[in-house]
């Protein structure tokens, strides 16, 4: 059991009439224990796809079946309130997902290593610090499936390694969906890869084949 997308389409109204179709029938099946890299050029619809998987946006048509808990799209923006401190944001997230507030905060404190920045407004964080907080709190909440939107890049190498180690520990029971335009990131984290191009998603069981195809795009 995991996540299933059946013929998912998404279009947006175009300024001045007409519609812009971003996704034209995406099908996917992702199970626990899989780490899937979704490759696509800028504007291919990667973020849109991730937001639909997360339930932030609804597909124009098609079905998303979620039989596991799914994180919000971990990226640069969203999910956090700039005026509140990092700690207050963590408290809020712990509360909405029904997690013990104090323990969640302790886990985040030790994992994100933000020091006294945790008590400062989220708006004052650098993009690397934002990524660290987002990963730390989502790991503390403990989802079945993590959605990562290009956000590994701003975190420094040490933290990226830490995230990979933490994820490896739960790799058998968790799933990872990572969207990126970087082949190296996919190689570092993923067991399967897919390419999003022209509004459809093509899966490759073999990483090398996927990356080779992607480089020809």
């Amino acid at each position, binding site marked *: *059991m995991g996540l299933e997308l059946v013929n998912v389409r998404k279009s947006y109204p175009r300024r001045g009439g007409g519609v812009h179709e971003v996704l034209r029938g995406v099908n996917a099946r992702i199970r626990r224990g899989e780490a899937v890299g979704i490759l696509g050029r800028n504007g291919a619809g990667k973020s849109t796809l991730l937001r639909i998987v997360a339930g932030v946006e609804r597909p124009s048509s098609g079905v998303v079946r*979620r*039989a596991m808990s799914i994180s*919000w799209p971990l990226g640069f923006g969203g999910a956090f309130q700039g*005026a509140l401190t990092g700690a*207050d944001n963590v408290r809020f997230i712990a509360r909405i997902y029904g997690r013990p507030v104090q323990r969640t905060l302790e886990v985040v404190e030790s994992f994100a290593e933000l020091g006294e920045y945790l008590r400062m407004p989220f708006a004052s964080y650098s993009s690397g610090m934002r990524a660290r907080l987002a990963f730390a709190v989502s790991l503390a*909440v*403990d989802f079945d499936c993590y959605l990562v939107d290009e956000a590994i890049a701003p975190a420094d190498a040490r933290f990226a390694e830490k995230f990979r180690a933490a994820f490896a520990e739960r790799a058998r029971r968790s799933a990872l969906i990572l969207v990126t335009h970087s082949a190296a990131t996919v190689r570092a984290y993923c067991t399967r890869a897919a390419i999003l191009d022209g509004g459809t998603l093509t899966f490759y069981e073999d990483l090398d084949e996927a990356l080779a195809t992607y480089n020809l795009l």
Partner: protein
Amino acid sequence: MRSGAAARPDPAEAAAVPQPRPREGWRVQRRVIGALILRELHIRFGRRNLGYLWLFAEPLLLGLAVSAMHALGARGAGPRSAISVFAFFAVGYSLYYMFRAVVGRAANGLAGNRPLLYHRIVTPLDLLYARHLLEAAACVMVVALVSFGVTVVQGLAPDDPIKMLAAVALMAWLCHGLALLVAAGVERWEMVERLTHPLIYLQLPISGAFFLVDWLPGPMQELALYNPTVHVFELLRDGQFGQRIRTTYDIGYVAACAAALQFLGLCAMHAVRPHIQVD
């Protein structure tokens, strides 16, 4: 959008984040709304405990200032009744404040909270529910404080506190429906935001906050009673002043208006849901 059969968890899922299944929906929503209320308090009033006082100090001060101005301006003329001008306006304004707070802020109610919609379990409706509950609770406090003040200063204990509470509840219900319509409208047409400000100003003199139906000439009375908030203020004042004044209200009419507004508001929110931009 989960199929029933596919959603059965395997044993390994037991420790994971519970998915909001239909049966759990209400529990999850209560948790989310509770967290939103706490968060809104933190943002608006800071973490220091004294900050929370502003929640009712602000409307209270404003209400007292407006009432004092009316009391001074109306010296001599005044309402033709046995109650003091000051008490009359203070009680009225304390409830009008909720209309201003809920309907007036509805236009940007979603805007400031958009990042939170990144969490699938937080819905636009939850954001509005949390805010409205908070404002209604603050209004109960303010009305209670004003009423207590009138009791102490003027020796007029509230005639029927239950009626006053009912008035706050009905006002909250009316404001809720209207705020849903405004919040949904703004997502569709930006100019709705511009329309809410005149609505707040126009509503002030005709809301019933500052007059009794009894003071109006006959045909005007009938006209005034088309406005549901007029009934609410009459009910509030009946609760405070009882037999000292003559009040006219129809709770059924207010409830029908509120239910209609809420229904339309929910429909409008449902209609704009796919168009709400997350950021």
